[in-house]
């Protein structure tokens, strides 16, 4: 016996050495998205292959938010562990049968705050998932009610890697913000070498709260007015089952997430992860595209002050802005507005690529009315005209050579 004890002490010191790691700051989009969703008090579901550090991320998050972490492995529990165990008392007819909660729930309620991590959600049988639905939605475990300070995060393995996995039912899937958890090769290699990343977590700016709420509401409402078909759409097709889909509930979550990302000043990449994880890829990307359009300058204010106009740098956005200006002139054709639009096109040509201006200029020219003289500014668009002519010639040459080949 005694011969082994010193050996174990040596082993312990070796283990201690292995545990010594340092951290370095590194931007981490998915951790930022997770933090914001947890801060917004929305249940998050992390999808990821086994063993890629979902639990480690949760530990880091709990430390950053200063919340005690409780891990519950959903697949090894019975439905009654989440809905409460019926305990038969002395006189059920008078007192009723109380639903007794499990010990971890009692502990969380006593603390009043915490991070509840439901692991292996997708491998839990349907009856357990149904019981979890109540926990996630109504925040009830048996007769206990989870305090407001408790945040819920769940993890699941994707269907491809969970050999015996059940898929998530659409109602349960709709309550979560789905985040795809992937590992970054460089981070893992550097981490095994002893340096793990330390993400700077987003901070909410108290000054920006009202502005963020107004922006979020406007963004989602304007979008849904334009696309009423996307308010509610059950997932169709086999490959999209078990994931996020749009419904009034998930749009409400989207409003919340947009407000949080705005208040935190987080990047569009973070917002993209969150929105696509809440309403699904297609509707999410459409909403983001509509946000991009909201970022474009308002055509009316561009027309009001063409000389001081600031146009987007990127060519495709610039063309979208110019198209919007031409469309505004079309809806209310007046001489002054027409002239202002020409001045804008000249400005666009002088500050960026000229080919972007060609299509708006052609459309604007076709809006000319009787008695409107061509403004002097058009002279300065001659570069655009010659550009357009060169492209026309190329098209003719291309057609001729194609004809000759045939």
């Amino acid at each position, binding site marked *: 016996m005694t011969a082994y004890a010193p050996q174990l002490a040596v082993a312990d010191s070796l283990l201690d050495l292995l545990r010594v790691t340092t951290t370095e700051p590194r931007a981490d989009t998915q951790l930022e998205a997770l933090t914001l969703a947890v801060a917004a008090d929305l249940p998050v579901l992390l999808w990821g292959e086994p063993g890629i550090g979902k639990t480690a991320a949760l530990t880091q998050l709990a430390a950053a938010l200063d919340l005690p972490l409780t891990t519950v492995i959903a697949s090894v529990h019975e439905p009654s562990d989440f809905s409460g165990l019926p305990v038969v008392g002395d006189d059920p007819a008078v007192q009723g049968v109380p639903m007794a909660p499990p010990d971890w729930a009692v502990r969380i309620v006593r603390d009043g705050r915490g991070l509840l991590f439901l692991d292996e959600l997708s491998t839990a049988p349907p009856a357990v998932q149904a019981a979890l639905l109540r926990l996630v939605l109504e925040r009830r475990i048996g007769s206990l009610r989870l305090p407001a300070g408790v945040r819920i995060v769940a993890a699941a393995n994707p269907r491809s890697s969970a050999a015996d996995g059940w898929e998530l039912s659409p109602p349960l899937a709709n309550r979560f913000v789905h985040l795809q958890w992937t590992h970054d090769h460089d981070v893992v290699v550097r981490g095994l070498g002893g340096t793990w990343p330390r993400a700077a977590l987003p901070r909410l700016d108290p000054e920006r709260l009202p502005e963020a709420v107004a922006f979020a509401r406007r963004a989602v409402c304007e979008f849904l007015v334009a696309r009423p078909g996307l308010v509610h759409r059950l997932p169709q097709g086999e490959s999209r089952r078990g994931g996020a889909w749009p419904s009034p509930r998930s749009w409400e979550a989207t409003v919340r997430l947009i407000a949080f990302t705005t208040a935190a000043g987080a990047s569009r990449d973070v917002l993209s992860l969150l929105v696509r994880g809440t309403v699904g890829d297609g509707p999410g990307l459409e909403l983001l595209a509509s946000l991009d359009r909201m970022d474009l300058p308002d055509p009316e204010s561009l027309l009001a002050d063409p000389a001081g106009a600031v146009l987007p740098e990127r*060519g495709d956005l610039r063309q979208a802005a110019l198209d919007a200006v031409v469309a505004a002139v079309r809806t209310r054709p007046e001489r002054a507005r027409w002239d202002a639009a020409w001045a804008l096109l000249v400005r666009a040509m002088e500050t960026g690529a000229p080919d972007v201006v060609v299509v708006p200029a052609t459309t604007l020219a076709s809006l000319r009315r009787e008695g409107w003289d061509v403004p002097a500014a058009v002279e300065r668009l001659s570069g655009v005209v010659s550009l*357009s002519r060169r492209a026309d010639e190329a098209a003719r040459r291309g057609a001729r050579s194609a004809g000759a080949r045939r």
Partner: protein
Amino acid sequence: MTADAPGALDLGKLFAARLHAARVRPYLATALFALRLVESREVPTMGVDRYWRCYVSPAFVDRTPLEELAAVWVHEVAHLLRDHHGRGDRVARERGLHGPAERLRMNIAADCEINDDVYGDGLVCPEDAVTPGKLGLPPGELMEDYLRQFRLGPGLERLAWLDCGSGADGLERAWELGPDGAHGLSEQERDAVRFRVAQGIKGVPGSAPRGWRRWAEEVFHPPQPWRQLLGSALRSVVSAPGVGEDYRYGRPARRSAGLPEVVLPSLRRSPPRVCVVVDTSGSVSDTELGSALLEVAAICRALGGRRDLVSVLSCDAAARTVQPLCRTEGVELVGGGGTDLRTGFARALRRRPDVVVVLTDGQTPWPEARPPCRTVVGLFARSGGSYDENDPAYRPETPPTWARVVTIGPAPA
């Protein structure tokens, strides 16, 4: 706008070429205009990086005709839209391909994927464009497939100068500005551009070639292998409440011993009865049927279903024999000619199954009413024939909405 100093970049020519490209490929205009131009004397011709910057050599612009420049614009933007850098990285990791030679091979394979249907119809094909035909390969395949089919050898030496930048193969070049350089597109912006291009192609599918239509369908929803989908569809119907195992109060739970006052449900299992109806009409090939049937058998076994509860029924115009799946192989399938799955369903339901799995190509009438059990349809994909070119109103009969449909096709690589 024109080149005043010798060696300066002729922006006028370059922008006229982009305009020409956007006119003949209107669905790519968003992506073309989103590219950020960077003048570079180190890049041999024109190249892109993964942040949507486009590097251009002034000498290349000078010596190339405008029509060919337009074709090069479309070619470069196609690399980015099709995510060749991301796919290149993935292939490199999966197959262990390292070094500049392998990346050059990826660039050539990616060029093959693009060039077989991007030119023509107003765009000239540059003289030295790499096409699958020049390498003796069939057209219409993906970069990953081409990569398996050729090697760098004596015939390909003249391609060694070819370089479309890291946007085409994922390998960073010396002249590129990298992730921290100015005017790159973030991941979200890249996704948004690709999404808008895909929406445009899906909106007017007639004007885009087949390769682009396929890309637009799959860009945000890559197809999953049908084996996984069929497996999870089967698993979820077999294990849904009321079919497979679930909690019952019929017998006391094992935990009850520790909690004498408490009534607990227990996990009980009643093995599901599965009936597989196989369409043996002439239009389904034996290999297709064989692989799908093997898959169903394997999944049922993995689910713990007793094998004698899984039966197989072959069905053409009339339903034939019903056989229990007792042996690992050797299920006899008889049939040929037309199909009528209604008789197959009627015959299968006589055995009171929990789940009916139908393997068919879908060219059949379906039952009017929903059967009293869950249904999974494994549908063999039929490209072509299903849409009638002369009659746009023609739609083939699709499986009913109450069935879960998994399309079975060739397994993606």
